[in-house]
């Protein structure tokens, strides 16, 4: 039987260990963010945001095409995925008690856990091969497949949170169930749903693998959805593995812009939640 002192010492040591664990966990975060700023901030000039790729040996190239491409394809993914995701979320919350609800929830979790590269080759077989071309549409579709389960699950949670008293009041006033659900309940849960969408968008904006065989990439600025399109993560990848200092430098800058985009979307989600909590 250990002495009281031994037990105290062990206790203190383990407490210290958990402090160290927390520190070690946060260390890479600090390292990455600091590196991004240090190596990337200097390259964020006017050219970077307004020009697209230039051939090797030329200077003054930028990531305009990649930034636009990411915004475009995330936008596409939202157009396709958010209505479907919200619809499924409402279904799960309102009618999801039975077997179908359980199945859909299970499937949503399966999609959440599927590696995005697998979703990428799926989008390739579905949209690239039959259409005979790489396209931003295929890229947007692949991203939408990632988006839908996340939006569905968060929508379900948010709609569930709406108190039943609200529903009953609406029904008592003569609203049919569908109007109760669509107008009253959804509007109340609205901020939460939008939060879920923003979280999903921030996740999807950083995805590279699904775009490798769908959007392919483009040196030119293009907003045509039936043509290949550049994207921030794709461009960062190409430039990171290249041997040219010029490319590497731009990769860091692109990564900085990407993380800022992801963080802004996530921050937006947080601010929306806080506003909602203050209201509720």
């Amino acid at each position, binding site marked *: 039987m250990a002495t009281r002192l031994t037990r105290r010492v062990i206790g203190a040591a383990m407490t210290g260990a958990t402090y160290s664990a927390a520190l070690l966990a946060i260390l890479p975060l600090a390292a990455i963010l600091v590196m991004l700023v240090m190596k990337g901030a200097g390259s964020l000039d006017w050219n970077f945001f307004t020009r697209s790729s230039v051939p090797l040996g030329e200077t003054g190239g930028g990531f305009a095409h990649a930034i636009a491409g990411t915004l475009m394809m995330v936008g596409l993914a939202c157009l396709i995925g958010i209505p479907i995701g919200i619809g499924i979320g409402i279904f799960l919350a309102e009618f999801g008690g039975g077997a179908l609800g359980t199945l859909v929830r299970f499937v949503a979790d399966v999609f959440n856990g599927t590696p995005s590269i697998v979703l990428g080759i799926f989008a390739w077989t579905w949209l690239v091969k039959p259409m005979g071309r790489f396209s931003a549409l295929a890229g947007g579709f692949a991203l939408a497949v990632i988006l839908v389960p996340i939006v569905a699950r968060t929508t379900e949670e948010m709609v569930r949170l709406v108190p039943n008293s609200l529903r009953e009041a609406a029904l008592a006033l003569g609203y049919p169930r569908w109007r109760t659900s669509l107008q009253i309940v959804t509007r109340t849960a609205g901020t939460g749903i939008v939060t879920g969408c923003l979280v999903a968008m921030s996740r999807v904006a950083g995805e590279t693998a699904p775009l490798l065989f769908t959007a392919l990439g483009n040196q030119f600025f293009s907003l045509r959805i039936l043509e290949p399109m550049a994207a921030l993560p794709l461009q960062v990848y190409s430039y990171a593995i290249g041997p*040219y200092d010029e490319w590497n430098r731009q990769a860091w800058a692109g990564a900085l812009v990407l993380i800022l985009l992801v963080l802004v979307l996530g921050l937006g989600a947080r601010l929306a939640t806080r506003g909602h909590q203050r209201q509720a």
Partner: protein
Amino acid sequence: MRMTSSLGLLAAAAAFAAAPLAAQSEIRITGAGATFPYPIYSKWVLEYTKTRPNIEINYQSIGSGGGIRQFIDRTVDFGATDGPMTDSQITAIGGNVLHIPTVLGAVAPVYNLPGLTQQLRFTPDILAGIFLGQITKWNDSRIAAANPGVQLPNTDVVVVHRSDGSGTTFIFTDYLAKVSGDWLRRVGRGTAVNWPVGLGGRGNEGVATTVRRTPGAVGYVELVYALQNRIPYGLVRNRAGQFVNATLQSTTAAAAAAVADLAADTDFRISITDTEGAEAYPIASFTWILLPKQGTDLARTRALLEFLWWATHDAQRFATALGYAPLPARVVQLIETRLKSVTVAGRPVLPAAYAPGGTRR
């Protein structure tokens, strides 16, 4: 209200997607393939579209294997490869392909040996031995024998090869298969082979990067990548027994013998590795653009043909600055005939008298 501000964010994204588009091109051509000629192709696209703002040519350098694949799948308008399509691949698409050579290039054996001041010399045996994993140290007797007086370190040889389907790999393995029976038996030639040893790098860029960052590394890249990254590369002994540097002259010399014998109905799929000639560089090759003999879209096919005409004629002067050798005159003549033979809906796309700006300067 919070919700409207959040919705605002979403609306902004959607609005961007529907925003009026910037100056859009009328004709967009997509091509994909070899990383080997990427520097010259991107230069050509830049120069060509300077005076033709209504044309956009998007070339993705994903490796020759990718170029062939995408071409077969018809997901691109043209493919690009340094390893020509095999007979079975051509049969599989009904023979509907033209190989148009664009430039000549050389594959250089690059290495990373800090402190070494002289240029290393490689014999065919040394290269085969290294890539077969039989030579594992830089101060191996075989390397020392070919490099008398050079202080070779006792470091491990780190082989770097391509991890993606690559025409550069095809050129290099084609060469090794010709000079080493062992290599031919064990590995063979192809755009992607079962490498006995080594690290994989993606694209010419990837191999260049890895060699540059790894002391003791040796790899093979297209010459321009070695030049632009200032990576040292070695001399290679050719069939005539001379140690030759990869230069414009030696690359052109490599093609000379093969070009002289070119038949009028050639499909241009000729290998010029390990050729005769005292000055010939042994690891040289054409690089080809793949396009369909029978196209489907008249406007795009015409634009592509006009671009290729320009590329194989006027634009050859850009090649030398980047370390590629221009096409021999006889080859260009034959290319003209081929380009004029491309049809859409049964009719030739280019008029028979097509000859912008006169013949090749």
